[in-house]
């Protein structure tokens, strides 16, 4: 009976004050029976010491106080044959499982382990990885964006000035703006229309599957697929078009067109590929939201004489607003970071480059670390408002509930 009680205090979320208050009478730190083994206590202390030492070493290296010089055995860092590769893979997995098992066993079996120590065992590995892999690099990139191409001399805001004044970067920023403006709107629109059109039809499952399929294909794969569609053959006697798009143009009596080369419209044809990929995502999420609209609402509207487009406009769309926001912002963030499509289809040539691609070009082709870092920071700054908006909207919809 009590299991089904809907008013059961939610012990998991610590966000509301009532939950915290209620939690106090739950025996969280249940008095542990004093049966911990001293051996495991020793193991636990050893693990803690090794971890601390490791952190010190890494921090020393990050701070430049000490340069690690390791001669790794070659099987560890360079595997050539398939057997070696799979061997290394299983070695890595087993090593990971063994380390985690040891940590958890130790924290479970050792004597007098406090709650915070248990939490540390559960959270420590991921915390270290996040600090090493996201926080520290983020801070360092921001710092590098104020230095020159070899990150030796401080140049102030010069890199940013270059970004916002030079012509080629103007085009890059303009292209990114076009991408972020068009992709979320069109993908969400197509996804919504399609979700409504196929909702509750006989072919719903297969119809949704077809549009959703591009989600599983890599952006590189999708780029090849569309490059093939856009393929251009000169308009000569005896030369047939092999790209579907140009064949359609020829069929209706037009000249074949260089879809990927002719600026400025080539950016739009790249954008079409992203829309092709993202619409399936929008459709799936929105379709689920539409199905979650309570029947009595649509019923009531129908009794009031609402139908067809009116139903869509005044009942469906307002009811799925939270899902709308999630879809829109998720696609917008993905589009801001778009890299694969541009890289594969044009390599950023013919005025199609975007911020993420230009970042790659500057950092790894031109070896201008400062400028690359500045581009990455621009990306970071552009993503922030979208994520903040997303979180606030989520909070709002949770409050309403």
């Amino acid at each position, binding site marked *: 009976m009590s299991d089904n009680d809907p008013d059961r205090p939610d012990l998991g979320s610590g966000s509301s004050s009532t939950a915290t208050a209620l939690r106090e009478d739950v025996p969280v730190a249940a008095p542990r029976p004093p049966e911990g083994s001293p051996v495991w206590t020793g193991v636990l202390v050893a693990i803690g010491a090794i971890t601390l030492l490791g952190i010190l070493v890494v921090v020393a290296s990050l701070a430049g106080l000490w340069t690690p010089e390791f001669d790794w055995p070659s099987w560890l860092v360079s595997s050539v044959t398939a057997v070696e590769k799979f061997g290394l893979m299983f070695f890595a997995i087993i090593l990971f499982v063994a380390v985690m098992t040891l940590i958890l066993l130790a924290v479970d079996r050792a004597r007098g382990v406090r709650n915070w120590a248990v939490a540390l065992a*559960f*959270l420590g590995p991921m915390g270290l990885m996040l600090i090493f892999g*996201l926080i520290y690099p983020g801070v360092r*990139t921001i710092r590098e964006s104020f230095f020159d191409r070899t990150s030796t001399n401080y140049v102030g805001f010069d890199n940013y000035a270059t970004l916002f004044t030079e012509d080629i970067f103007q085009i890059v920023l303009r292209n990114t703006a076009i991408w972020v403006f068009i992709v979320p709107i069109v993908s969400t629109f197509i996804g919504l229309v399609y979700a409504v059109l196929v909702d509750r039809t006989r072919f719903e499952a297969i119809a949704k599957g077809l549009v959703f*399929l591009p989600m599983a294909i890599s952006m590189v794969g999708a780029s090849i697929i569309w490059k093939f569609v856009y393929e251009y053959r000169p308009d000569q006697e005896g030369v047939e*078009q092999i790209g579907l798009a140009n064949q359609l143009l020829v069929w209706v009596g037009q000249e074949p067109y260089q879809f990927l080369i002719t600026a400025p419209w080539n950016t739009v044809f790249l954008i079409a590929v992203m829309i092709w990929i993202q619409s399936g995502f929008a459709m799936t*999420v929105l379709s689920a939201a539409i199905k979650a609209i309570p029947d009595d609402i649509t019923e009531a509207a129908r009794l009031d004489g609402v139908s067809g487009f009116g139903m869509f406009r005044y009942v469906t769309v307002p009811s799925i607003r939270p899902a709308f926001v999630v879809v829109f912002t998720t696609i917008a963030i993905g589009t801001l970071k778009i890299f694969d499509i541009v890289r594969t289809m044009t390599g950023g040539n013919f005025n199609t480059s975007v911020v993420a691609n230009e970042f*790659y070009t500057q950092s790894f082709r031109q070896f201008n670390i400062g400028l690359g870092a500045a581009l990455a920071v621009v990306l970071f700054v552009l993503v922030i408002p979208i994520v903040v908006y997303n979180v606030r909207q989520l909070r709002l919809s949770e409050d309403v509930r």
Partner: protein
Amino acid sequence: MTTTTPPPPPAPTAGTKKVSRAEQRATEAKTKLSSPWASGLAIVIAILWTVPTFGLLLSSFRPELEIKSNGWWTIWRNPGFTLDNYDEVLYGGSTQFSTFFINSIVITLPAVIIPITLALLAAYAFAWIEFPYRDLLFVAVFALQIVPIQVTLIPLLSEYVKWGFAGSFWTVWLSHSIFALPLAIYLLHNFMKDIPASLIEAARVDGAGHVKIFFQVLLPLLVPAIAAFGIFQFLWVWNDLLVALTFAGGTQNVAPLTVRVAELAGSRGTEWHLLAAGAAVSIVVPLIVFLSLQRYFVRGLLAGGVKG
């Protein structure tokens, strides 16, 4: 609702109420599809979304000369099927796709297992262990999703070079795991919170510690959620280009399929027989995974914030 409740009291509308849900849906479908514009539009979208893929897959089985001289829609005029393209792409001396295929597998498995394990542990701690600053820490981890991976690439790379394992699988595994963690923790935390507190309390009363509760009570209940995120992460890693290009791009021994296909598209953009077969090889594994586990994948998508 209509199928489980006892017959309603007689009313003018009793006839329609007795109609089962399926029939009701069918009639609604009929009214909807009666608009030819609507069904026409749906069919046009469905065609636009499938024909490009179909064209490439069909082309990958056509002889090189045919691909380069006429479109796949003329196949009824220019018939001819061959597996030569696949043979050349997979085993040909110049491309060696099989090597990249193996690399993709070797990269993907640990890059799925490691972050999911760590994220499960972290999500459990955030949901069910009491410790100081818990909520603050959770919000901090969630907020890390803001950091675009581009920001982290160069510092990470220079650190890997310093430690002497640049260009090895370790860098790709570690990077993918790190980048996956914030979202994984957030999603799995959502699932964790949905588990009834009474279950965990019962286990605690029985004297089980957190480790036992995690493995014996929560893990079995979370299998669907783990599957959902696992497919997500699998597709993400398998389809990734940027991380692979940065950390493994230079070495043929580590670079995955996507790097190779992108390279082909750049350097041999007109070799359509190779490109088509190569792209087909690179999409076949995610396609199989996706089609067989579609239900879980969709569930994973929907856990991203549109719950309820």
